[in-house]
């Protein structure tokens, strides 16, 4: 008798948690992922409010304070918390403004490769006779070149710069989306619900985008997170090679390229931009791991 009332008293919503809530419960169990999320929130905050958060203008040169060490060291100035670079620019302000660029490059390149990638993958999956293999061969060619080298090749054609960096990175990450989408689509196409939708008279576009695509999203979300981090890394590498965003723009990799000459005198100019890159990429990768475990338990042991 008592058990019956207990069951009746239970709120049905606790028995079947919403997908979002269930996802969050899985995600929050992974401490690394939560730490990564918190760090990324900090970076996003810095990027959004850079002009207000940063103590100085990133390109203002304090000629009297060239290569000032961080404030906690001897000779440090409290107004330059992380020290200044070779032109007397405040390092902290440049790093904060750099987060805008890195996030923007990451976001733009992910969107620019995700959307065509999903489309090509869907087309490739739905037309397995001729178009599909043709698309996959083209993607194989793109995968044959290591991503950074392909990006370097593209920049060599287009010339260095912010926009071209984004384009290069977007092109480089396209194949993985196409492959993932196509593989997921081909797995779904034989399912009963797709047959049912076909029988119900769903058109090609409805089948593609409404019926099948939502069921393929989990690996794509994970891949988008991971390629966001490699976009930041590749953009910084291009900047470091002098092929990406050009100085004096405060891009993290570009900052490192000019810091090489001060390796003997000013460790902060060398270490801090790289540390920022490492921590951001690490945070995103941790988040990506958490997302993968929460969204797609099948992939748990894949690298």
């Amino acid at each position, binding site marked *: 008798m008592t058990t019956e009332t207990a069951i009746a008293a239970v709120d049905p919503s606790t028995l079947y948690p919403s997908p979002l809530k269930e996802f969050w419960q899985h995600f929050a169990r992974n401490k*690394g992922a939560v730490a990564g999320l918190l760090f990324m929130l900090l970076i996003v905050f810095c990027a959004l409010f850079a002009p207000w958060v940063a103590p100085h203008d990133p390109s203002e040169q304090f000629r009297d304070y060239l290569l000032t060490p961080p404030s906690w060291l001897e000779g440090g100035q409290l107004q330059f918390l992380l020290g200044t670079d070779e032109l007397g620019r405040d390092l902290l302000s440049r790093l904060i403004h750099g987060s805008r660029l890195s996030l923007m490059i990451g976001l733009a390149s992910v969107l620019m490769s995700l959307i065509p990638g999903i489309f090509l993958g869907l087309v490739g999956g739905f037309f397995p006779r001729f178009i599909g293999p043709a698309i996959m061969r083209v993607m194989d060619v793109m995968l044959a*070149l290591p991503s950074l080298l392909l990006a370097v090749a593209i920049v060599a054609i287009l010339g260095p710069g912010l926009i071209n960096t984004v384009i290069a990175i977007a092109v480089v990450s396209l194949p993985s989306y196409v492959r993932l989408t196509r593989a997921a689509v081909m797995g779904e196409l034989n399912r009963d619900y797709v047959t049912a939708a076909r029988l119900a008279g769903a058109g090609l576009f409805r089948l593609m985008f409404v019926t099948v695509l939502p069921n393929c999203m989990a690996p794509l979300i994970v891949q988008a997170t991971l390629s966001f*981090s490699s976009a930041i890394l590749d953009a910084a590498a291009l900047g470091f090679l002098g092929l990406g965003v050009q100085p004096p723009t405060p891009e993290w990799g570009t900052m490192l390229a000019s810091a090489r000459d001060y390796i003997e005198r000013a460790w902060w100019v060398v270490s801090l931009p790289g540390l920022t890159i*490492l921590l951001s990429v690490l945070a995103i990768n941790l988040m990506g791991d958490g997302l993968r475990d929460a969204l797609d338990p099948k992939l748990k042991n894949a690298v």
Partner: protein
Amino acid sequence: MFTFIARRLGLLIPTFFGITLLTFSLIRLIPGDPVEVMMGERRVDPEMHAQALERLGLNKPLYEQYLNYIGDLAQGNLGESLRTRESVWHEFLTLFPATLELSLAALLFAGTLGLLAGVIAALKRGSLFDHGVMGISLAGYSMPIFWWGLLLIMFFSVWLGWTPVSGRIDLLYDIEPVTGFMLIDTLLSDEEGAFLDAVRHLILPAIVLGTIPLAVIARMTRSAMLEVLREDYVRTARAKGLSPTRVIFVHGLRNALIPVLTVFGLQVGALLAGAVLTETIFSWPGIGKWLIESIGARDYPVVQNGILLIACLVILVNFVVDILYGLANPRIRHQR
């Protein structure tokens, strides 16, 4: 086995032509006038302009240009550098051993350390060591290696003075390039201390280049090992009283190696990309630095065919790994 190799070879052909198409279009997609871009000046004298177009074969229809390009490639003619007037193929051959030596050293470092760390982490699952290896490998995987290189130079070369900052060998030594591998050439020469000097030059770049493969291999070995240790045949081997070392290395690691080998092969592409960065940091005279300098100097024939050569290299290595994988694992070989 033969049909397996033939099928894989057949898959290579379209990829190869795709890559030639990419490198072919490279020089033709440059925004603006290619001759002006290559000469680095505007309003080139019209006659010289026409001559340059003629020389580069850019005045013919596109399909004819492409056929000519393929024809040249088939004859082994990769063009010549605009800067040095040397043939691209010759320059590639002189510089490639440096990159190969660096890559092999990096793989050796990553392979031994990664396998060891992965196996121990798997055996002591959940221990402090395991968490440490996983944490470090995650950090290694996220590492901007160009910064990592600068950091190591700052620490070991500038502060401690243990290793040289750049290059392959001290200028004091005059080493004749017999094999192109500095380690072998220094041993062949009779210069005293040259070998040790070459080793000291090699250590930091190899560590930098090996960092990401190390992280990947350690992670992969650990998860493959954990998988294998759960198998019935490992339990059987233990039950029949084999020594733990034999179970781990002969029954366990040998089977765990199959996925690890694949990852090893996939790392070669990443290794060549990393070589571009590593060689730039350490002024290592290999093909990565060559490529970046050529881009800076707008030396398009070198850029074009240098990229082609590197891509072919990656395809070739992946092909060999595929074949080895087929040899090691009959399930792959017989699948359609």
